[in-house]
């Protein structure tokens, strides 16, 4: 495109933005709110994902052994389980070891165990998993194989917890796209309406440009660029809004519970997610304006 055309289009865009400044600002604001909701879900998703990842590193599967299994048989089982691909480490805990660990966990309250037999608790194989095998399905598969081993009485793993986490993640994902999608549609229509308004406000100018022989692209380009600018401005505003809200929330709400959750454990949007948000703003603004130009600038 010749530089003269670039200057010409830039002049038209600047003129229209100046003329309908409040309408454009309002649209960029609505776009920012929409993208903020979507970005908020992205932040929640990223942080819940991190928390879950942290917790899942502590996921263990316990195979409780039958009473008759002696130390040698237990060791043979331990060696066998240790050879499974999903197992990072496995340790044998004898009845006495289990009793000591339980007693220790009670701390100063351990006195309540006085008088009880020290072989009350079953011996067990405590299995730690490799990170690639911490999904619900992988854990359940391992549990089934452990249950089938001769000498295993029962297998315990955090099935309910894993299921809840899976549901929570699916819920966040679903809400992100359902609510985000609805708001995107609203933003898309609002950008379209703003551009329609700009077209109507400049109807005389459009007619004159057509009469003096302006090419179609030269007439339409300023309106499409206006939509693009609205989208990008909305995305920039959304990022600012999200950053401010994130700082406020982590400082004011999370900090008082500092002993439970460390502020630095929460993360803002990473670079790819920021780019995604800006790209969505750009796409919404451009698509909304193009649709309007197509409909109202025949």
């Amino acid at each position, binding site marked *: 495109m*010749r*530089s*003269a*055309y670039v*200057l*010409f289009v830039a002049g038209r865009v600047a*003129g229209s933005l100046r*003329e309908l400044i409040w309408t454009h600002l309002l649209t960029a604001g609505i776009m920012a709110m929409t993208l903020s909701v979507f970005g908020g879900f992205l932040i929640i998703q990223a942080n819940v994902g991190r928390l879950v990842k942290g917790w899942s590193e502590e996921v263990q599967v316990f195979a409780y052994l039958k009473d008759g299994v002696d130390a040698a048989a237990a060791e043979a089982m331990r060696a066998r389980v240790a050879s499974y691909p999903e197992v990072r480490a496995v340790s044998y805990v004898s009845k006495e070891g289990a009793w000591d660990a339980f007693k220790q966990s009670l701390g100063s309250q351990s006195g309540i165990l006085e008088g009880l037999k020290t072989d009350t608790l079953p011996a067990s194989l405590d299995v730690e998993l490799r990170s690639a095998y911490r999904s619900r399905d992988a854990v359940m598969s391992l549990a089934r194989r452990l249950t089938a081993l001769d000498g295993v009485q029962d297998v315990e793993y955090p099935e309910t917890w894993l299921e809840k986490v899976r549901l929570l993640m699916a819920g966040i994902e679903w809400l992100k796209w359902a609510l985000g999608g609805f708001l995107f549609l609203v933003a898309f229509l609002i950008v379209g309406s703003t551009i329609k308004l700009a077209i109507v406000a400049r109807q*005389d*100018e459009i*007619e*004159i*440009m*057509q*009469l*003096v*022989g*302006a*090419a*179609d692209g*030269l007439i339409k380009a300023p309106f499409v660029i206006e939509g693009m600018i609205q989208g990008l401005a909305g995305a920039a505003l959304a990022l600012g809004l999200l950053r401010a809200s994130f700082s406020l929330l982590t400082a004011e709400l999370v900090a008082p519970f500092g002993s439970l959750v460390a502020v630095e454990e929460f993360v803002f949007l990473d670079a790819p997610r920021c780019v995604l948000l800006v790209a969505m703003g750009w796409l919404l603004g451009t698509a909304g304006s193009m649709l309007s130009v197509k409909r109202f600038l025949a």
Partner: protein
Amino acid sequence: MIQLHKVSRVYPPDYTGVKEITFQVEDGEFLFLCGPSGAGKTTLLRLLFRAEQPTEGQIVVSGRNITRLKGQALAAFRRSLGLVFQDFKLIPRISALENVALAADVTGVSWREGRRKAFRLLAELGLKDKYAVLPPALSGGEQQRVAIARALVNDPELVLADEPTGNLDPELAEETMRLFARIHRQGTTVLVATHDHRFLRSFDGRVLMMRQGRLAGIHDTVRAASAP
């Protein structure tokens, strides 16, 4: 050269704008399109700058059939014309200079060149001191001169004017017609649609008389002016 062959324009359901118009305009001619309101002058001009398509017939301008032009070809054709309207068709939000330069800008000339040409034309038409003024602050005559400057900024070979004096008082109307005569003397083909017969006494050229959408006769200006 402009050639019209049996050109008709019928609006649904059955209103006839112009019917079976055939005539030819040589390069460098000055032509008046005359007739009362509703005679079809504006429709004929709109067909010539392709704001409308004929329902029948062919229009050839400078050897090119413009009847079915569209898109880029139509825009390029319009850039080769100079158009002047009764209501001036100026953008009220931008200065006289920018209104004139707009027509140059769309051809892709540099920003500086467009303004230079626009300013030179405004100065030639006596608006040197008004170049920065917005159209609503100009008189009718001044606005029409700005519109004429815009029509001339790309050095067109053909200027089409639709009732260019319709909104002007007699003195300004006379002055505007003298301007068209001057443009014609520089070699430009000029077609002026008007219902005002006064000009036919003072300007040389041919006159196409129109009545009820049909061509009622072609005369020179002297004969047309003396006709009853």
